[in-house]
């Protein structure tokens, strides 16, 4: 028994395409290609959407933060207005008493007093006796001349 090898020549094989495509494939392909090449305009819209979507999500915490900041600033303003109003309610006499008890006079304060010494000031504004004021002025003069 001989084992003969069958010699098949390429030209003996009928030339045919054995592959198949789904029905209507070549009818729909141009449309699908056109959809893809026309996409760049819609790609811009897609970019806008992809940019806007996370921004929209970030809007909620941003709005909360903004609201907090506005409330904080308004609160600060009303606090300082409250302090001014409180201070306005304190009488002159209490302020002068407070200052004479706790405040430390500095040479600059006395210099200011000196600068207005020529002016006629109402006695109740200074609320000091003429002799005390003279003593203070004399002291300021000695202090500024370094004697």
């Amino acid at each position, binding site marked *: 028994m001989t084992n003969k090898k069958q010699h*098949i*020549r*390429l030209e003996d094989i009928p*030339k045919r395409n*054995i592959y198949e495509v789904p029905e209507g494939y*070549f009818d729909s392909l141009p449309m699908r*290609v056109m959809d893809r090449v026309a996409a760049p305009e819609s790609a811009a819209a897609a970019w806008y959407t992809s940019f806007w979507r996370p921004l929209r999500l970030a809007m909620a915490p941003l709005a909360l933060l903004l609201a907090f900041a506005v409330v904080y600033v308004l609160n600060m303003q009303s606090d300082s207005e409250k302090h001014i109003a409180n201070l306005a309610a304190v009488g002159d006499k209490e302020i002068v008493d407070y200052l004479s008890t706790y405040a430390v006079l500095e040479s600059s304060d006395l210099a200011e007093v000196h600068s207005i010494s020529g002016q006629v000031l109402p006695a109740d504004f200074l609320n000091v006796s003429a002799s005390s004021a003279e003593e203070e002025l004399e002291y300021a003069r000695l202090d500024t001349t370094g004697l």
Partner: protein
Amino acid sequence: MEDKELLEKFANPDSRNLAFNQLVRKYQQKVYWHIRKMVIGHDDADDLTQEVFVKVWKNLENFRQDAQLYTWIYRIATNECLSFLSSKKRKFFLPLNDVAAELAEKIDSTPGIDGDEVQLKLQKALLRLPEKQRLVFNMKYYDELKYEEISEILGTSVGALKASYHLAVKKIEEFLKQD
């Protein structure tokens, strides 16, 4: 419609889409079958065909008319095939033989393939060839392109193409002899 007329219409923004649609209709089958014989599966061939025409759309304005339009499109399709096959090898760390085995397996398992035993064997024999030799064989044997046209597509000399085709036929016949 002649290629020259298609290109003129494509250059005009008002008729660009229409001209391109006609271009796709004219060349879609050649491009698809050229790719399908290389990648075997329909889905891959479909993706690559669309990709080829997207590239044609993007580059058609720069197309120099000293080359023929269809050889230029064939070249794009060929490059897409080769990139696809090498990315497949890179992705799965496969040597050439394993890609061929995978494609041969596809021939047996894909429903859209209909051929007798000899035809299937021929296709499997083709998969044994190096990719560029398979391209040369497909373009000469199935697409019946002239060597000069294949030379323009692949950028290889006519002499080298003739030698490559001759060698491919010998290898195929040798494979067909085996049981």
